[in-house]
């Protein structure tokens, strides 16, 4: 019997009077790289915000590791999150950003924290940037630093919001490679919002495709298989990158 890490049942959400998704259900298996796909405005990032617990759904239920809705404020984080812009704390250095959760939630001495920060930054290819401010980093470096911060407390689940959006092809490929390595070597379950086709095929093990018109999930499964076999013209339009 499968034991999904995330179980979503009958989820409905929207902004104001507009409903973006209606009665959606899906599961994310442990060790998966699960992609939330869809065109611009289909509500991918909003779905991620609901999974993280930043928004309350209008209806439905989200369970992570079988313990109900995610808890945020006042509790040690159970998962890592990388926001689309990186959302690094601009007044802190890169090292302080990565060390932030370690200072808040562990009793580790400063020297040990410094060693962990160094290792995390090396893991994402940012060794030696501890003392730099986020404003001094490029877009790709900010996203890498945000991943390092998200990994600080050794989560088993990582949420990524459009990690390769706005990056040059080389930086995007390096980030995809990093995600694959994290998934394989650390056994991280990754839930990722994206609409970058190369990333989808490079890292995705399973996915759901959101459709804004029907406000539903119109396809689910392995992205490569969907691209090759799903007959739905909307699915083919997305994977074949065809204009409307």
């Amino acid at each position, binding site marked *: 019997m499968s034991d999904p890490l995330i179980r979503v049942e009958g989820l409905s959400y929207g902004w104001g009077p507009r409903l973006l998704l209606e009665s959606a259900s899906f599961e994310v298996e442990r060790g998966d790289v699960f992609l939330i796909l869809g065109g611009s405005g289909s509500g991918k990032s909003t779905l991620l915000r609901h999974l993280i617990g930043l928004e309350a759904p209008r209806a439905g239920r989200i369970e992570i590791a079988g313990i109900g809705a995610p808890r945020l*404020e006042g509790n*040690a984080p159970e998962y890592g*999150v990388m926001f689309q812009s990186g*959302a690094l*704390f601009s007044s802190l250095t890169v090292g302080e950003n990565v060390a932030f959760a370690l200072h*808040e939630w562990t009793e580790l001495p400063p020297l040990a924290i410094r060693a962990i920060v160094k290792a995390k930054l090396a893991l994402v290819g940012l060794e030696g940037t501890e003392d730099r401010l986020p404003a001094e980093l490029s877009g790709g470096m900010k996203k890498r630093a945000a991943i390092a911060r998200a990994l600080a407390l050794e989560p088993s689940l990582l949420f990524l919001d459009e990690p390769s959006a706005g990056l040059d092809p080389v930086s995007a490929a390096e980030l995809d490679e990093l995600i694959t390595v994290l998934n394989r070597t650390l056994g991280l379950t990754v839930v990722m919002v994206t609409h970058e086709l190369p990333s989808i095929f490079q890292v995705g093990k399973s996915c759901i495709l959101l459709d804004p018109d029907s406000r539903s999930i119109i396809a689910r499964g392995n992205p490569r298989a969907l691209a090759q076999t799903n007959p739905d013209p909307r699915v083919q339009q997305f994977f074949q990158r065809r204009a409307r």
Partner: protein
Amino acid sequence: MIDADPIEPAPDSFGDRIGRAAAVLSRFSWSTRGGPGELEISLAGRITLDEAPALWKRVAGVLDPAQRFQSVTIDLAGVNEIDGACLALLVHLQTELSRRRVRCELRGAHPDVQRLIALYARRRRIKRRLPRRPRSVLEQIGEATAETGDALLAAFDFIGELVMATLHALRNPRTLNLRDVAFTMERAGADAVPIVLLINFLIGFVMAYQSSVQLRQFGANIFVADLVGVAMTRELGPLMTAIIVCGRSGAAFAAELGTMKVSEEVDALRTLGLVPLRYLVLPRICGLMLAAPLLALLADAIGIAGGALVAVLRLDLTLAAFFTELRQAVQLSDVLSGLAKSVVFAGATALIACQQGLATSGGAEGVGRRTTGAVVSTLFVLILLDAVFTVLFGALGL
């Protein structure tokens, strides 16, 4: 019939004058021919944004409701170069004529231009919003009342959450972000000292100068010490300091938290398990409430010094006489009541600024709107609180 004339002159119209000027400079030709109900337009030459005014004049002429065509053909075969803006005008002409059930054909265009025409002419079904009807005065008052009610509810909600966060911080002092308390004290307190000193010195100076004219008439020069001393300690020192702090730190808090909110830093903080109210707001409120009375004390002292300068230079008083009178006029309760006010003023400033900052949405424009809102609301609340204090202290005999 061939019509290759420049645009018809039409006096008194600015648009026409522009059109004429554009026609003189234009590097394209527009010639028309046709029979009854038919119009064939031949365009030739280079048609770029510089020629757009002249072209628009021609397009508008064809679209004149007085003209009754059944078909219009636009021949682009002689066009050497056409840019997107001018093409958009031609597509507009075609669309508008089609809407009037006039057949309109663009022909002879280069294949690339045809592709661009196809893209420009692409129409999606868009649900048009109904035009907003003008709202009655009653409706506007109702809406404004509802908005004020919502804002008040949000403020009470914020205060409630803040009380809970404060209680939590009191029970677990380790969770208070002390680093930011010290940082706020330095930034909002120490860094504001020069401007607080300058403004309050001038306030004391001006107040003494203005009153000196009246006091001299009655031979009451010595009472300038009473006037400046009591006014600065009880009223102007704390109030002017609060206004300066509102402009400097209140605006900074709102803009800072607003930017953090729109750049998802506040969300990131929440996903790291921290409570923004406890981590971002409480330290700012504490820091400002600790720094403000120190600033107010400095304001009192420098304001009195400004008054003393006038007393010596203009009222022929000695410093010893001034300060002897001051000691008799100003009681400890005057100074303490002023300091108490400054603490409350600082708390209100930080609270409003942080609430507005965390309520920000909508990018840079939202940050600007909330920052302005924070300063305006704070100034109003400061004056309101000052009035309440005046009545309250009066009733208590302080």
